[in-house]
């Protein structure tokens, strides 16, 4: 039988190799699933992973979409990864993302139709603030009353979604919209627009922010004492207290940073690709970012790659849906497999597998 044997020191090779292995296993298992559904597995996998980037017919549209989709995922996931590393579980990034969009849009719309150049920076600040405030609720409840931040942050997502609907129908509804739900279009108002910065790349300010977040978080974790304390608190909470880390301060900090980054993602989304506050404005980035954070091993560089990969499976998945007629549930199952295999092969970093016969373990 197989025997798992704990390695004395975690293997650096397998730490880096497991995500690649997980992707390969997902392709194989997904291919089997597509074959059972009666589709050509090779064509399906190619449609998901290859065509969006290189097919002459689709890549013109799909390629910029990659950054558009990956930007918010990476931005949110980087923030979440800091908390996850410290053992602080902010599951409500979706809510913070929505609140960032609402706060930012409201701050801008208050000045409509001014052309003051300071309005966009103000909106950015308001967006970050909105996400931060929403994350502070579970943070302060945890530090003051020891409530569970997983539950509180998750449930606040549904509150945020209801607020979003109310805003789209009420306070932020466009006066010129003929009664339809939804705010004014922020991407068409030059003052608040978050345009594509380089034509054909999909690069907008949110993507820039995501790259900055990746670099900043890399430096924080590698070089700064705060990053060390975050890692220490996650790995050995008692050792962290011995090292002088204040656990409550860390909760407020990690929740705050992840909330603010999620809020920023919401703001850049509502002023750019989405354009307006609407009932169905959000597209689940906040939840998907949790997967991205783990897929990237809670490492900033890994998250950058994982965000791109996840965005690719979304775009490729949509392509496969209308090109091959694959059901959307199959695409979701495919994405689920990715997380499953990643977690399953994760233990290779800390364990080695041995074949053993006869002996009881």
């Amino acid at each position, binding site marked *: 039988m197989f025997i798992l044997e704990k390695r004395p020191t975690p293997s650096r090779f397998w730490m880096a190799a497991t995500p690649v292995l997980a992707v390969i296993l997902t392709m194989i298992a997904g291919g089997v699933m597509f074959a059972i559904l009666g589709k050509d597995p090779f064509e399906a996998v190619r449609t998901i992973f290859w065509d969006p980037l290189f097919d002459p017919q689709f890549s013109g549209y799909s390629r910029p979409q990659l950054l558009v989709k990956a930007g918010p995922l990476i931005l949110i996931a980087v923030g979440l990864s800091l908390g996850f590393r410290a053992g602080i579980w902010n599951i409500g990034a979706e809510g913070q993302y929505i609140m960032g969009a609402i706060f930012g849009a409201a701050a801008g719309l208050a000045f409509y139709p001014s052309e003051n150049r300071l309005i966009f920076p103000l909106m950015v600040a308001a967006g970050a603030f909105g996400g931060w405030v929403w994350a502070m609720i579970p943070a302060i409840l945890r530090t003051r009353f020891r409530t569970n931040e997983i539950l509180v942050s998750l449930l606040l997502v549904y509150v945020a979604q209801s607020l979003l609907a109310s805003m789209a129908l009420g306070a932020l509804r466009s006066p010129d919209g003929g009664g339809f739900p939804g705010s004014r279009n922020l991407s068409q108002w030059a003052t608040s627009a978050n345009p594509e910065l380089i034509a054909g790349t999909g690069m907008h300010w949110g993507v820039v922010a995501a790259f900055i977040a990746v670099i900043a978080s890399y430096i924080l974790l590698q*070089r700064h*004492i705060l990053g060390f304390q975050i890692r220490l608190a996650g790995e050995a909470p008692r050792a962290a207290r011995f090292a*002088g880390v204040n656990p409550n301060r860390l909760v407020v900090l990690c929740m705050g940073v992840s909330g603010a980054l999620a809020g920023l993602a919401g703001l850049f989304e509502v002023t750019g690709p989405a354009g307006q506050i609407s009932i169905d404005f959000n597209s689940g980035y906040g939840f998907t970012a949790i997967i991205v954070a783990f897929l990237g091993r809670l490492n900033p560089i890994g998250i950058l790659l994982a965000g791109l990969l996840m965005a690719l499976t979304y775009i490729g998945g949509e392509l496969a849906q209308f090109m091959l007629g694959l059901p959307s549930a199959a695409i979701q199952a495919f994405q689920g497999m990715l997380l499953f295999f990643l977690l399953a092969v994760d233990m290779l970093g800390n364990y080695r597998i041995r074949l053993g016969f006869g002996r009881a373990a």
Partner: protein
Amino acid sequence: MTGTGEVLLRIEGLTKAYPGVVANSDVSFAVAPGEVHALLGENGAGKSTLVKMIYGLVKPDSGTMTLRGAAYAPSKPGVARQQGVAMVFQHFSLFEALNVAENVALGMQNPPGMRALASRIRQVSQDYGLPLDPGRLVGDLSAGERQRVEIIRCLLQDPKLLIMDEPTSVLTPQEVDILFQTLRQLSAEGTAILYISHKLEEIRALCDAATILRRGKVVATCTPRGKTARDLAEMMVGGTLTPPSRSAKAKGAVALEVSGLSVPSPNLFGTALKNIGFSVQKGEILGIAGVAGNGQDELFLALSGEVRTARDRIRINGAGCGDTGPNERRRAGLVAAPEERLGHAAAPDMSLTENALLSGAVRKGLVSRGFIDWAATRAFAGQIVDSFDVRTPGIRVAARALSGGNLQKFVVGRELSQAPAIVVVNQPTWGVDAAAAAAIRQALIDRAAAGAAVVVISQDLDELLEITDRFAALNGGRLTEPRPTQGLTVDEIGLMMGGAHGMEVAHHVHP
């Protein structure tokens, strides 16, 4: 006591290997009915693995066991118990939130009704002089009383062989005497006892025969009464031992002063500190003894700054610091080394370099304006490894890859390398091999000689007698008045540690 040639348990050629280490290699010995047989060896010599095989917790790779003439190969502890083998572990497996009778019932195959069980517990506890109220909550019991629960749990099964793993590490000297009376009574009734220890005087006092293990092999068998403690120690260690040396030196001004310190325990069933006061001078080593669970952890946390109190309860060089955290205290000159190496003193999955930063950042100036100076940190880690002889492939390996003794040398070395004014250590040599323990004790003595005030919290009385200038004991969260170590007798120490917790009475009634 021993019948002529009669053998209860015979072990032949028992071998057990784990990846990278041979725990037992070709171990053979025999135990007669009623014999008290010692298994003697250092930490890591393979004693625990051996008895776990006898108790059915570990399966041997090769070798045979015979119990009362029949082949014996228990597949699980339940089978061992059915055949009359019982074991009292060093670490108790008791539920603190349940009472004594409920805990005993949990370990039985077919427990009788609670009332019947309670009366049987009372009966056995009277017969063997181990007073125990079946209705009391285990969380409220002292360590010695908890051990009685474990022993009575075994005795209810009427065992033929009782295995005891380091039973005296949680007892006061008086409690040890009474335990020995109980064990002698069992032995006289024909129950064989396999007694694991590294305490030589105990073995000389109690045991009929001894098997000495070193690195998994039987290196000698002897009658312990016919040997001196020194002979036994040298057989156990396989060389001559040099006890730590120290020269008497004049003490300096008071460096650490604690007064009226009362702190509730951060843990459920922990022990609150009650009005603790002591002071330590520069160049002095104060020993704090006590049976585990009498407030040692709480006192350590209060001194290290992980638990805060009122400002003036703790003074470093005259300045109040009771309300400051660990890093402020480090800045003021106080360093601390916790008992639990993995998870408290060190982060198991982090490298030695990162672990050097863990408590060294403040005093060694490894962080400037929030950014870590990794080059300086690596140099610091390397310096610890060199000067404290930490055996490791390098400073990049994870802390958990080091053996207990080596990691302990690293942890103690990390603190002592920071030129501290005050050193607080909790159980500095627990679970550490003799050579590493001697090195750590010498390092503490050297630090005191260099002018530091040192507080050693330990359950190892021999260690405290060897290295301390003054001696105090924790008992139920209270600290006795510190007394000069020189001239203290074992009886006096035992009384300071709380005596026998009311056990003498029982033995007078039921001798």
